[in-house]
């Protein structure tokens, strides 16, 4: 089946099997391997992306199901020279070790912290329940999200982050 998606601002049309998962479409068809696969039961959140503005586990959708949608992956979040505040905060706060959960964790955290510059520790911990990190014990991830929430609000007027 033919499917067209806008991924990180670019249009892509591909002919794929109807059973192809969105995450496989991103990784195998588009080569966007920043989105990792950590489980097969939608538990771990490593494959979290933004689908039409919402944080979604990309293993839970078929590519053909989301035909016409807008997708942002970790590759579309920031650039090397202009990291997204959430990326910067994960780096600053040592919010990652092996890095495997990190793209999904960052994508989930961005949506969590949006519009809430004083997000509480408890809200962050519950909000990230769907993302498993086996390395960090989460403490520095919580700190990173708190730090980024503040930066994101203070930069809210900045066009750069409005699109994600």
């Amino acid at each position, binding site marked *: 089946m033919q499917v067209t998606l806008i991924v990180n601002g670019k249009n892509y049309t591909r002919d794929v099997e109807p059973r*192809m998962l969105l995450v496989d479409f991103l990784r195998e068809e588009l080569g966007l391997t920043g989105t990792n696969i950590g489980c097969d039961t939608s*538990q771990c959140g490593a494959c979290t992306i933004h689908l039409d503005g919402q944080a979604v586990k990309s293993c839970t959708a078929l590519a053909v199901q989301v035909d016409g949608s807008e997708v942002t992956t970790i590759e579309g979040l920031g650039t090397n020279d202009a990291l997204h505040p959430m990326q910067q905060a*994960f780096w600053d706060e040592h919010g990652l*070790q*092996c*890095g495997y959960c990190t793209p999904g964790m960052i994508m989930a955290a961005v949506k969590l912290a949006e519009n809430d510059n004083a997000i509480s520790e408890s809200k962050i911990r519950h909000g990230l*329940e769907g993302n498993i990190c*086996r390395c960090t014990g989460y*403490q520095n991830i919580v700190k990173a999200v708190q730090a980024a929430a503040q930066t994101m609000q203070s930069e809210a007027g900045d066009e750069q982050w409005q699109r994600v």
Partner: protein
Amino acid sequence: MATSIGESVKRVEDPRFIQGKGRYVANLKLPGMVYVAIKRSPYAHAVIKRIDASAALALDGVVAAFTGQDLKDAGMGALPCGFNPPDIKVPPHYALATDKVRYVGDGVVAVVAEDPYTAFDALELIEVDYEPLPVVVNAKKATEAGAPQLHEEVPNNVSFYWALGDRAEMDKVLAEADHVVELELVNQRLIPNALEPRACVAQWSDFAEEMTVWTTSQNPHLIRFLMSAVTLGIPENKLRVISPDVGGGFGSKAFHYAEEVIVPFVSKQTGRPAKWVSSRSEAFISDSHGRDHITTCKLAIRNDGTFLGLDVTTHANMGGYLSLFAPLIPTALYITLLSGLYKIPTIFGESYGVMTNTVPVDAYRGAGRPEASYVVERLVDIAAHDLKMDPIELRRKNFIQPDEFPYQTPVALVYDSGDYDKMFDKVVEISDYQSLLQQREQARSQGRLVGVGVSGCIEASGVGPSKAVIGLGSGVGLWESGSVRVHPTGKISVMTGSHAHGQGHETSFAQIVAGTLGVPFADIEVIHGDTGRTPFGLGTYGSRSASVGGSAILRSCEKVRDKVMKIAAHQLEAAVEDMVYDASNGTIYVQGSPDRAKAFAEIAVATLTAHQLPDGMEPGLEESTFFDPPNFTFPSSAHIAMVEIDPKTGEVELTHYSAVDDVGKVINPMIVEGQILGGIAQGVGQALWEAAVYDDEGQLLSGTMMDYTLPRADGFPMINIGRIETPSPTNPLGVKGAGEMGTIVGTVTIANAVMDALAPFGLRHLDMPLTAEKLYNAIHSAGNGHHNGSSNSSSNGTGNGGAL
């Protein structure tokens, strides 16, 4: 000012990870690649009667299918066991089963297709006829008369027996002691669950007659050696193994796995690059598991709290085959750690390594040491309860004292350094222990179930001194390589045999170089995980990277520095003894005349031109070191936790956690703290949630992330971290291992806290995981008078013992 040792430098590896540029094996795609999927046994024990892959082979897009016999016929060797204590019986372990399957998940057929979806379709079309056999999953039951037998080579399923100590002396101590605390406990089986599933890619080149294998390994050099010498038979100089970014290991990626035989075999057979990526469900039944001990233990004490002796018997479940390091875990990494932080004059420890119809068990974070600390610290806690002593005071009474190092324990090890009183002083301070106790009393007076748990532990890390480990049964020495290559521009490549899979070596190893040579941090690159680019090394596990791998790098830096000093002295026409190396900026000058100086980069280029070197000196600036430590390092921990149990649900809330660790000198405090925090989370996971559960038919009931409860963000409070430093004298950096400490001590700290919360019910011990269901039932049956925990210790060792 150069970056130096001891600074919390931000990690240089992070920019690629936070941007989705991690170089994981699953991301690798090569032209013409075929995809491998593995048909695994649904039975825990069965004879393979017939395999028919014809329907699969007829499917469009299927390239080939291979059985265990095909691999055997092609000369693929059985997977090795690399730690062989005396009289061990090692059953053959083929990459794909040939005659029988011995656990659910045992590989039977490898199918190869043009794309992964087709490969999975093909699995469904392969027919295998099995004749089911009786199953045993419990290590103790497997040794009983009449138990199902797994391997002809292993009578009664006991692969090995290992003991330290004098049985008669132990019996005498137990008989004469004022008091003996006795406990039966299970250290439950865990599934490591590194978030990146394992993966393997292989590419055979007919042109170069070379095999390249990309694999998710903590240990690429050792894997190459084993592939070459034991399984694939490809000479090492024609075999390159690359472990790029690896998404967590925790021990489970340190072993030579079946897929590392199958995938290269497929590539050679098909002449195309081949790829296998594990699914999570597959990982649950094909990654090595951890722990799984059934233990009986006794602590003999005097009425004043002095420890007299410790007696431990363990049945360790090895699973269906012996994984690479498996026999090491319940022996040399377990029995030898039973002295804990304490002077215990008499210790007897014995382990039986038992085959069962379960996934093979091997090292998982801590590997033997969490099991040891769980035994010791549970017994000590119950002893404190029996003697009505504060648990910290009882521990202090028995600590090895700072002036007693090096300390020879009765179980073979010589501890290097430590100050356990100081460590506990610090944790008492940062946890505000007295306040926690007051909060507990107040809560109890309100009828709430609040407990405070204390634990201290020791670890033998930095594995390890080669003579010692070979003497214990290891097949290889455990030294490490570190090379420092100074390019003519002054830029530096560091090659290490260690492997980072989250530990941040690219940062902390660069700090060692920057701090020693005074070169800009940005000019240093650390290369690891590629046998084609780094000298042979032994990889990362057993908290060895900093102390063994880091020390090799430090030594090489010192050799570079010495050569640079000689060249600078020659060019400045001064005596070497008069030269000063300023490691803050990489300047070499004549003592008293700072203007008579050379910059590091100037000397680097001089080793290229080579016309102004001292007579007889070789050009070039590259040094290598193979560092073999004289001893292990012995980090220690003191942790305190507070929990509250909801009596209505049995659920545990972790309300406070303070951790003080002594990991010796610290290269990067931020990274070390991260290691401790992550380790604690896995420790809490074992105590409260995680368990591999098998039914009697050998089916893994907790075989997905829906059924196996991994720690999540909402399970923790903010944890207080403190540190004391007693430098290790066994390596030039003075460091001790940090990666496993949190797990080794965290588990038992939580268990002690939960049991403290249950003390009002008279409950002495419950086996982990301390789930809501288990606690709810325990509380409610105790409330009904079904439990009386007052009698599982005894005077003069006559008690009936036992856990609940």
